[in-house]
């Protein structure tokens, strides 16, 4: 599955078809309920309590976590596992995305079927070697089933932590998104260079307040 460089307008359309549609859903009350749940969970995690599964069995959760960790692996930086993506998916399926229970179950079945086909002696996805895991997912990467798993993983990795994934902002830290509530210019390298070259007026910066004690 490769990005085919669709137009910006189609970005939005894509969000609503194929894999993206998986999580499109819900009315406000459900989202709010999910938010409260996440809040609660975030607090539990902060307090050192183990995050609770609401939907998956522990065995299912182990499989899902292994799949998400193959999609966004742990390298020298944290991946889907450290971001708690499995908890994001678990929470989604028990709150705002209950209509995705069947598609996710079908996706897990598709992974299991391909695993058995390629590695008949294996017991589960989680116990495959990393290379074997990649082989399994590569074999189904063009399917809708994989698309749902990939979408859910990326969403759980880069969502706002209040949604139950992206723990400790590990996803945001990876891509260097600061998540700050406000910013001040200059914002990036090239506008900082522009400011140096052309000065604050042309850069649209507010005139700097005169330093204390400076003569007018």
């Amino acid at each position, binding site marked *: 599955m490769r*990005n085919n*460089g669709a137009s910006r*307008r*189609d970005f939005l359309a894509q969000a609503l078809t194929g894999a993206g549609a998986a999580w499109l859903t819900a009315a406000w009350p459900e989202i709010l309920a999910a938010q409260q749940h996440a809040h609660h969970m975030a607090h539990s995690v902060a307090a050192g309590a183990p995050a609770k599964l609401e939907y998956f069995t522990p065995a299912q959760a182990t499989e899902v976590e292994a799949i998400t960790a193959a999609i966004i692996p742990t390298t020298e930086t944290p991946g889907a596992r450290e971001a708690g993506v499995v908890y994001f998916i678990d929470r989604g399926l028990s709150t705002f995305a209950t209509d995705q229970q069947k598609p996710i179950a079908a996706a897990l079945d598709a992974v299991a079927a391909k695993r058995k086909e390629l590695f008949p002696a294996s017991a589960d996805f989680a116990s495959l070697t990393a290379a074997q895991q990649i082989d399994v997912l590569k074999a189904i990467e063009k399917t809708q089933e994989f698309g749902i798993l990939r979408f859910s993983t990326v969403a759980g990795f880069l969502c706002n932590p209040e949604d139950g994934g992206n723990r400790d902002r590990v996803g945001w830290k*990876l891509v260097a998104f600061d998540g700050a509530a406000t910013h001040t210019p200059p914002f*990036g390298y*090239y506008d900082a260079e522009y400011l140096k070259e052309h000065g604050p007026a042309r850069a649209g910066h507010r005139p700097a307040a005169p330093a204390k004690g400076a003569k007018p």
Partner: protein
Amino acid sequence: MSQAMRKFGPADEVDFVIVGSGASGGVLAKQLSVAGFRVVVLEQGPFLHEEDFPHNEFKVVFQNALTNNWKTQPNTFRKTEQEKAKAQPALLYGRMVGGSSVHFTANYWRFHEIDFIERSKRGLPSGTTFADWPITYADLEPYYTKVEWEVGVSGQAGASPFDPPRSKPYPLPPLPIKSSGALLEKGALKMGWHPYPAPIAILSRNYRGRAGCVHCGYCEGYGCEVGAKSSSLAAAIPDAIRTGRCEIRPLSYAFDVRLDASGHATGVAYFDAAKKEQFQKAKVVILAANGAETARLLLLSKSSLFPEGLANSSGYVGRNLMFNSAGIATAQYEHPLNEYKSQIVTRVVHDFYELDPSVGFCGGGGMDMRFDQLPLGYALWGLRPEVPTWGAEYKAEIQENFTRTAYVFCHATSLPVETNSISLDPDTKDDWGLSAARVTYKDHPDDLKTCKYLQDRAMIMLDGTGARRKWASPIGESEFGVHLLGTCRMGNDPKTSVVNADHRTHDVANLFLCDGSSFVTSGRGQPTMTIQALAFRAADRILRLAKRGELGKMAPATAAAHRS
């Protein structure tokens, strides 16, 4: 809000009922209530406030927190009238008080003189219904100025040599430049073009009791949590409510404009929050529900007098839909741009606004540079074409390039084509049992050529910006619209237009339409500024008719406290 909002009973006959509270509905509500009239605004979405706008990409973009939800209000789509339409999302608009002006990007340049007279100047491209507007730029100029000063627009007068004449400078200076703007300016100057600071309907400083932009970055697609974005919600509706004569009634989904036996509109039937039918009586009905929903509501409002839909004697209701065509050229850089900070666009190029006829097609457009994706959108759709979409290499790519990507957005004309339309789907219903909006759309060949022309030049320009990589997205036919224009066009001839130059329908004397549906041509993208200028002008025209007694007996409250 210091004052409780005035409430009317459904049986109270108010002066005006307005369907839609967005860019035009909000302005009309303000202008008419300030002038002393009693107004009810029916808005299908919720009444959200600044504190309700979350910094949450997943909720807003993927769960339609602020927009129409295709699960409850499906669309269908087809390219030609011969096909059966398939269910697919085809339209997007803000569904809340303030409408799309809440979540828009806020690019606010004016249309140019050519946009109003291009048919006379360029002739009739084949397969189009190209026409001049019944008004000119000069007619609209005072209202463009009014928009800038009333709602708050940041910009620099005289910065673009292509700008049409203006009577007053901008009330606020341009917003701070971003890396995308700095790069576009550098590249464009090398090409001999004339980049200029983008006019943006976001406050660069505090203005009229509203806060200036804090550069949070949750901007395009989001509601502004400090009220710096000059939406109707922030910049018009509070003034309307303050008059004590305007009720904004949220969660009110209009489905029928009713007539009496003489063909006079009596009010609007709608579903309330409990999906119960209600009716609001009014002396005058104004539809400002956007270019899709205004047309759809007219088509839903069938009667023995108007079997093909209300005010549709021309057969033009829903037709000539224009989306604005678009082309994209993306680049990646050595150093971080951090485009996720602040509002979206800071420099614009209008050197190609009016293309010379020698190019062999009719059209024109502008360019800006931006990256309007937050982390999740980037990681799903912002990748360069050749990288894997999962695994270690994918992870390394998003780590490196989320902050280093921007693209040139070429925004261009759509020519009006009669068969491009909003109609009622014969089979698909929404959750209220109303026929779904069916979109029929195929870009005119000239529109695609215009986009390609602009994109080719953008690709060359990017070489001068020091990009380390660049790529052009394929230009394809649109299947999805956010600019919803032309579906009840204005004109002097009742056979080929739906409203006259006063936004009054040719067929029903006390029914007015004012939003993107009124457009005769598409402009070069960024239609909301012109929608609001039309709304300020329509309010003046309507008030003049009311004063002359042409809209029936109306008694405006005297000594309007907030005359503007």
